[in-house]
């Protein structure tokens, strides 16, 4: 990963590719690369779909190595959905392949005139940018099939569906999984719309002739990786729960806690939760000849994904994640896993963030477009409106906030324009702090890396004192920003939380690979550096502390069964970035 490729899509005479050494971005990866580059190079007041915005695609620090769990790819830009800086990451094969080809980042710049649509082929021989108007308005599954006929199966594909081409604000970028299905998405924030604005339909990553990235100290790296894998396998979450049920194992538990937002956040429990649960989903997948245990990229040892077949035993979609099942399920009052799975497929195919799409449909239900619980209606909205780009479909595809505004809905669950994920912040107040204050808009993964007790990034916190919520959220966001930079899947956090030796193995992998002497403090500093860059960008884009708030109804409307409102004070939340 010694070089950066810049592709000026708006260059006179057609797209122009230039190469440069990593320079000031050396030693970074993933989110650190995308956020620091965007903060430095993009005018925060630029329009997200304009020529001034850039789309930075960066593998993590350990991507392309033999290290386990290192397949996360970060994509960064100014977000059309939120107006803030955005980093959205995904699994799949793209990070590993791009890193092996040798790129620390590929940067799409400028904006072409005219209607031509482009594909970009990245290989060891260089980068080619070609017009291919035969791909116009194709959705991801048929698009990848068409590309496979030309470029084969030994590559990775990054694509946008019709949503990205139409520059819908909830559009995603799909990355293919090991079976070359477009199932892993940089979903949040409308990164697909930015790729669409630059008229790039597909990026083909071909690492033929390239080998895994070698560590500086191979023996130490191998030993650390072995210990790291052992730690993941022995932990009940990463070694048992996630492989058996996937992330949807959370449905029953969050519902039990009264934190499962139901029918557009009107209740904290859903009577149909058991039908949507990970336990029910896994049983159905296995019964139909699919699987509940599957890795989204090679080198994954957690295997939290799966294959969801239809009633006839034919592939329908990958195993929907917890947040997807919630957004299309309980949030919309739908308790049918087959409906949720079809909606998940449609999101992946059209190229949309499952969270913002599900929440937008729930908001549309609140507006009376269709009724809560109307699964067939939800599928029809996706197939007949969003996929066809009708006016109603376009506003739905621009996410919950725009849907709510256009349809006159008062209670729209968004922060900085991005839909809240599947955890109600009234009973679980700490997650509300993260939703409100993250640089990304409401995002459960922004405060996900639950290793802060080891990192002690903000000192010790008494876990049973309510007063610690802001401090905990701060520490979580710092740790997450750092892990997002390594290319590691965030799910490693569980093993790191409970097993100090696994955290040490994680640090040892980084140090053996780069010949560094990183400590927990170094990780904290990296996280702070990333967050500071993101916060600075947002400030220059016009965001203030007054944007770090939840929608008003969370402060005024109690939710059953606990009948609580969100009660963390503004003054407390304003302390989050004081470090």
């Amino acid at each position, binding site marked *: 990963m010694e070089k950066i490729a810049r592709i000026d899509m708006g260059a006179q005479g057609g797209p122009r590719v230039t190469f440069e050494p990593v320079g000031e971005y050396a030693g970074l990866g993933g989110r650190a690369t995308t956020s620091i580059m965007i903060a430095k190079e993009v005018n925060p007041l630029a329009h997200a779909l304009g020529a001034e915005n850039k789309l930075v695609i960066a593998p993590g620090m350990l991507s392309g190595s033999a290290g386990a769990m290192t397949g996360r790819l970060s994509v960064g830009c100014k977000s059309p959905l939120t107006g803030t800086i955005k980093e959205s990451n995904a699994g799949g094969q793209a990070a590993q392949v791009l890193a092996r080809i040798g790129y620390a980042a590929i940067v799409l710049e400028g904006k072409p005139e005219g209607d031509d649509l482009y594909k970009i082929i990245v290989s060891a021989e260089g980068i080619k940018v070609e017009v291919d108007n035969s791909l116009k308005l194709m959705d991801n599954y048929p698009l990848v099939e068409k590309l496979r006929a030309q470029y084969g199966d030994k590559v990775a594909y990054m694509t946008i569906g019709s949503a990205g081409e139409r520059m819908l604000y909830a559009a995603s970028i799909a990355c293919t999984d090991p079976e070359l299905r477009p199932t892993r998405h940089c979903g949040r924030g409308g990164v697909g719309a930015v790729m669409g604005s630059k008229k790039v339909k597909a990026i083909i990553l071909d690492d033929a002739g390239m080998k895994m990235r070698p560590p500086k100290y191979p023996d130490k790296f191998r030993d650390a990786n072995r210990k790291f894998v052992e730690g993941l396998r022995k*932990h*009940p*979450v990463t070694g*048992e*729960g*996630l492989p*058996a*049920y996937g*992330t949807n*194992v*959370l449905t*029953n*538990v*969050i519902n*039990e*806690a*009264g*934190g499962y937002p139901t029918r557009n956040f009107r209740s904290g*429990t859903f009577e149909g939760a*058991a039908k949507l*649960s*990970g*336990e*029910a989903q896994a*049983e159905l997948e296995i019964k139909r000849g699919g699987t509940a245990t599957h890795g989204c990229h090679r080198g994954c040892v957690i295997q*939290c994904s799966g294959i969801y077949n239809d009633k006839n035993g034919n592939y329908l979609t990958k195993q929907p994640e*917890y947040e997807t099942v919630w957004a299309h399920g309980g949030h919309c009052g739908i308790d049918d896993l087959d409906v949720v799975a079809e909606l998940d497929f449609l999101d992946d195919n059209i190229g949309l963030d499952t969270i913002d799409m599900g929440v937008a449909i729930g908001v549309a239900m609140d507006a009376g477009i269709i009724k809560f619980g109307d699964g067939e209606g939800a599928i029809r909205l996706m197939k007949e409106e969003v996929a066809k780009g009708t006016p109603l479909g376009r506003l739905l595809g621009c996410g919950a906030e725009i849907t709510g505004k256009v349809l006159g809905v008062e209670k729209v669950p968004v922060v900085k324009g991005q839909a809240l994920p599947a*955890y109600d912040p009234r*009973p*679980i*107040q*700490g*997650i509300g702090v*993260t939703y409100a204050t993250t640089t990304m808009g409401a995002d*459960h993964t922004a*405060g*996900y890396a*639950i290793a*802060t*007790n080891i990192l002690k990034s903000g000192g010790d*916190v*008494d*876990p*049973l*004192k*309510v*007063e*610690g*919520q802001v401090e*905990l*959220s701060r520490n*979580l966001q710092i740790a997450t920003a750092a892990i997002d930079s390594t290319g590691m899947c965030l*799910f490693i956090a*569980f093993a790191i*939380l409970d097993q100090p030796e696994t955290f040490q193995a994680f640090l040892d992998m980084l140090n053996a690979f780069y010949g560094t002497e990183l400590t927990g403090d170094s990780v904290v500093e990296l996280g702070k550096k990333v967050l500071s860059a993101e916060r600075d960008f947002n400030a220059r884009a016009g965001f203030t502390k007054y944007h770090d708030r939840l929608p008003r109804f969370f402060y005024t409307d109690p939710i059953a*069964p*606990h009948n*609580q409102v969100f*009660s963390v004070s503004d003054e407390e939340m304003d302390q989050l970035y004081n470090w």
Partner: protein
Amino acid sequence: MTLQKGSTLNLTLGGEQLSAFFPLLQEGVTVPARVGSTLADFLGEQLLLDTDYISSRISTIFMNNRPVDDIKTVLLHEGSVVALSGAMPGLVGATMRSGGYYAALRGGITYTDSDIDTAIRDGIIKLKVYNLLLPELTAPVLKRGVVFCPDDLLAFFRGQDQEFWNGCTDVLLNQSEIDPAELRSDELFNRLSTVTIQVKFR
């Protein structure tokens, strides 16, 4: 034969039939309990679970929709709803852990018991079991006994496939042997109040 109030049904099933009960335990089953005793006592002394198992595997516990941090201080009440889960992914999953590092993030809903009535007596509670604990706790819960209303029990039996019935032997109703086929008949269940089912897995 008809069921009388307080009837007991004993079944012997093959181990492969264990999963037939998973949906019931997810939804919640009624079990006898010594109300007034602690949750720790219920798990250890009544369900007869090993202390190490409780601390290492049952990492997420709810009482009446509220996460529990210390099972030794939580008292069971008549009709309490107790839910048991393994370790959960995600920040919120970690947040729900009993006594976990991130418990503060859900401090407002943490279970606190203000009831000082400590008289211990026989009663019933509703018990839910989730995820990784289903294969591990279904047998001990069913061995001890689960209380059903007859309609629910009949619906459960009628929902089972032939494989279930092939593995079903030694059916005793109030200590008298009956034909397993009777468990799908209205006649058996149509005059009763409750029945306690106890299952032994081969």
